């Protein structure tokens, strides 16, 4: 109805779940990524739903030991992760590669003040990007990370996934910097490029 406002609904801070988790199964790349994140100590996850990484986000969302947040834009998500990291949590931010384009300034601040976080971003300059509308997306992610001099890696082979996440977290904890892993769709969802 025109002019009608929804009534305020009492909510708890435990509310606000993200998308329903559809468990892709233990043999999946998403499960590998999730397991690697958890075993490395990640306990705070911020994300904006993305077609490549949504299964990982769903698994994190379903884990009661992980504080998850759906942000409204990726740079806001990185800022949330800055806060979590300052509070002693180990955050991961999951996003489409396009979101990296928003994140330059807040990532620069995180880098400057030695704030640790892991970024998992989909779409990048490796082969296998089929659609023209991902053209800007595939350019901006690595470009932003490269421009800031952030440690970064394209995980071009699923066999690298667990090792890459473990190594990224070691770098984060040792160097206290944001680290970016770019994960192509074919690694997470299967199918050859």
């Amino acid at each position, binding site marked *: 109805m025109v002019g009608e406002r929804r009534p305020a609904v009492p909510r708890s801070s435990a509310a606000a779940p993200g998308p329903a988790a559809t468990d892709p199964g233990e043999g999946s790349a998403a499960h590998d990524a999730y397991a690697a994140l958890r075993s490395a100590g990640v306990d705070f996850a911020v994300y904006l739903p993305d077609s490549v990484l949504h299964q990982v986000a769903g698994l994190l969302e379903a884990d009661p030991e992980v504080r998850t947040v759906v942000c409204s834009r990726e740079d806001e998500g990185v800022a949330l992760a800055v*806060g979590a990291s300052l509070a*002693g949590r180990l955050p991961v931010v999951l996003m489409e590669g396009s979101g990296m384009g928003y994140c330059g300034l807040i990532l620069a601040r995180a880098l400057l003040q*030695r704030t640790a976080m892991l970024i998992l971003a989909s779409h990048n300059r490796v082969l296998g990007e089929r659609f023209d509308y991902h053209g800007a997306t595939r350019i901006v992610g690595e470009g932003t990370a490269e421009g800031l001099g952030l440690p970064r890696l394209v995980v071009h082979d699923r066999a690298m996934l667990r090792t890459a996440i473990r190594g990224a977290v070691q770098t984060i904890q040792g160097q206290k910097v944001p680290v970016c892993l770019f994960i192509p769709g074919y690694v997470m969802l299967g199918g050859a490029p």
Partner: protein
Amino acid sequence: MTYQDVLEALAASRGAAPAVAGPGLLSRLLWATERAHMSLYQMELGYPTAVALGLALAMPGERVVAVEGDGSMLAGVGVLTTVARYHAPNLVVLVCDNGVYGTVGAGTMESATRHGADLAALARASGWDSGKVIAVETARETADALSRAFRDPGPWCIVARVAHTPNERAGGAGQIPLDVVEGAMAFRREMLQRRAAAGPGAGGAR
């Protein structure tokens, strides 16, 4: 009402609550008022509330305050929807709305709040509890609102209409002696000590 009125009211209510303060004059005035290391100063434009929300969700036992200017709040206004979604009861967002980009140039370039943008209405429209979004125009109203915000569950959004005068620009607000790197490290060290003192589970995953 001046910035000083608002920041003194904040100092009176805040106790040892950590703060994340926006860029420019606001951070310098906050430093001049409190001279404490419980604040993360000069956070980039558009991000103080998001960083404070991350802190609040990660440390549910701590009351956390974002100190925003109107320009910074407008730059990161989408975060109001995220705050409403997660409803962190320990978060206070204090916006000092002077209607200008006061740190830049002559400090007279008007922000959108001088042209009808209403930050309190934006918070309500984003899903905040209307009773916890308060627009204030006097020092007394500000002190009362902040007193409630640091006592009762939130999240709270207090939009304080402040005058912007040349005196405030001069204001005696010198440079903050800690640079952003030193400040962030001191801030983090303090947060880690609090977390350790609070014991296991202080982070409360959900």
